[in-house]
């Protein structure tokens, strides 16, 4: 599996092809969202909704061989695309990798300009929640 660094570089490369065309970029993000793995229906509960997002975002995890798998869904397609980028970078990693991850791709692709400030806050809330999960698993693994 590629490193967190490599995957982020891949994403930057993909977005650079789209250039400054905001419309194509948005369509591309939505397309990414449609590839998101099925979200476990029984976990579509209020406790799994991330606070701080304007859209509804559900996030849950599984632990397999010490690695964290993230599952997420949203009621809006663009948000689904954003989640799918985060999952691509952070899922199936050790807690420490997730906690130490510097998500430079977000600034490098100019995500703030693409999605605006409201959704950027939502994106930050998603990342925070993913890191909180990593922290909890790390504590459990060290216990």
């Amino acid at each position, binding site marked *: 599996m590629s490193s967190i660094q490599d995957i982020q570089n891949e994403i930057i490369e993909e977005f650079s092809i789209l250039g400054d065309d*905001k*419309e194509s970029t948005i369509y591309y993000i939505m397309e990414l969202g449609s590839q998101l793995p099925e979200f476990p229906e029984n976990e579509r509960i209020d406790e799994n909704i991330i606070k701080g997002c304007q859209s509804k975002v559900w996030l849950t995890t599984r632990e397999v061989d010490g690695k964290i798998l993230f599952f997420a869904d949203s009621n809006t397609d663009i948000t689904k695309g954003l989640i799918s980028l985060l999952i691509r970078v952070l899922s199936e990693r050790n807690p420490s990798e997730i906690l130490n991850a510097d998500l430079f791709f977000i600034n490098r692709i100019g995500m703030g300009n693409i999605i605006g400030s409201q959704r950027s806050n939502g994106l930050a809330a998603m990342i925070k929640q993913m890191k909180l999960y990593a922290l909890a698993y790390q504590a459990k693994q060290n216990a």
Partner: protein
Amino acid sequence: MSLNIEEIRALFPILHQEVHGNPLIYFDNAATTQKPKSVLDALCGYYEHDNSNIHRGAHTLADRATRYYEKTRESVRDFIGAKEEAEIIFTKGTTESINLVASSYGRKYITKGDEILISTMEHHSNIVPWQMICEEKEAILKVIPINDSGELLYDEFEKLISERTKIVAIVHVSNALGTINPVKKIIKKAHQFGAKVLVDGAQSTSHLSIDVQDLDCDFLAFSAHKLYGPTGLGVLYGKRQLLEAMPPYQGGGEMIKEVSFAKTTFNEIPFKFEAGTPNIADVIAFQKALEFINTMGKKEIRNHEADLLYHATSKLSEIKGFIPVGTTKEKVPVISFNIKGMHPFDVGMMLDAKGIAVRTGHHCTQPLMERFGIEGTVRASFSVYNTKEEIDEMVTSVAKIAKIKNK
């Protein structure tokens, strides 16, 4: 005589810019309208030439600023057909105007078991202040229902109104749907039961001719920024005898006659309700906004906007997956809609990518959205400077977006 829209557009500097490489198409006029150059110049001009505090300074600048400030009050009086300037109070906006009535009138006249009547299509700012006073006074908030087209059910209103009703607070034009409510009829009926009526005119004052004496409303609240004027400024109209009987809303300078530690006597209306140094610059600039509207003519504005509404409605309706929300005949130029299978946020962001500014979400009318069983809508709202060509651009974009989920 029809308006020359190109000439009008030339008066609005902000319209002439690109967003994401496309010419800006501004269809968020129900949130706030753009301001003509005359308003911007007046704002700057005030600070450059006349800045001083009003109603007290004994010097030339203060006198000039006071005269300009009071000139706007006179223009507002004329704009809504009020009897006298004293009935025009400057506030921060519609929200503050409603809060003023709810707190001041409500505090004095609402008692336990009284009823306040609002409708399903109220903006949060015409819900929450009444909920607060109901909570405080153990009064009861009742809600007039609507039908699936987004029309108020007048029959239901007649069933709800009674001698217990103290206030009817009703939106003249729905910001989320564009529906024009039969406020005159409602006011007449309410008065038969001795209830006072506050009309939320935030969305109506920019599109319809308003005559408060003809309507016979007791209060009218509206915002300057939806009327080509500056932000942070609004108006409360109230009938003299009501305003005189009401206690002050806030205490401070300007609103007093005499202050001693033993007792303070209050100034006359409207000053009794304008505590502190007011928003002088914006009030003065607002006069230019009203002048702009008067020069266009409300009737001509309405005709042009009706054309735009008709054009947009018929074109959008041809799009597969287009779901209009609020379909009454009596509307201002507001189109609320959804696209089947898509969230309004996504539609809004894709339109923004093409330089088209619309509003998405619940439009501060969550109970209304709940009534329709939706989370929100995409809302395109037009103004005098919009064109059919701009609407065609939007229709093309909406059609492309709708295709994603409606093949």
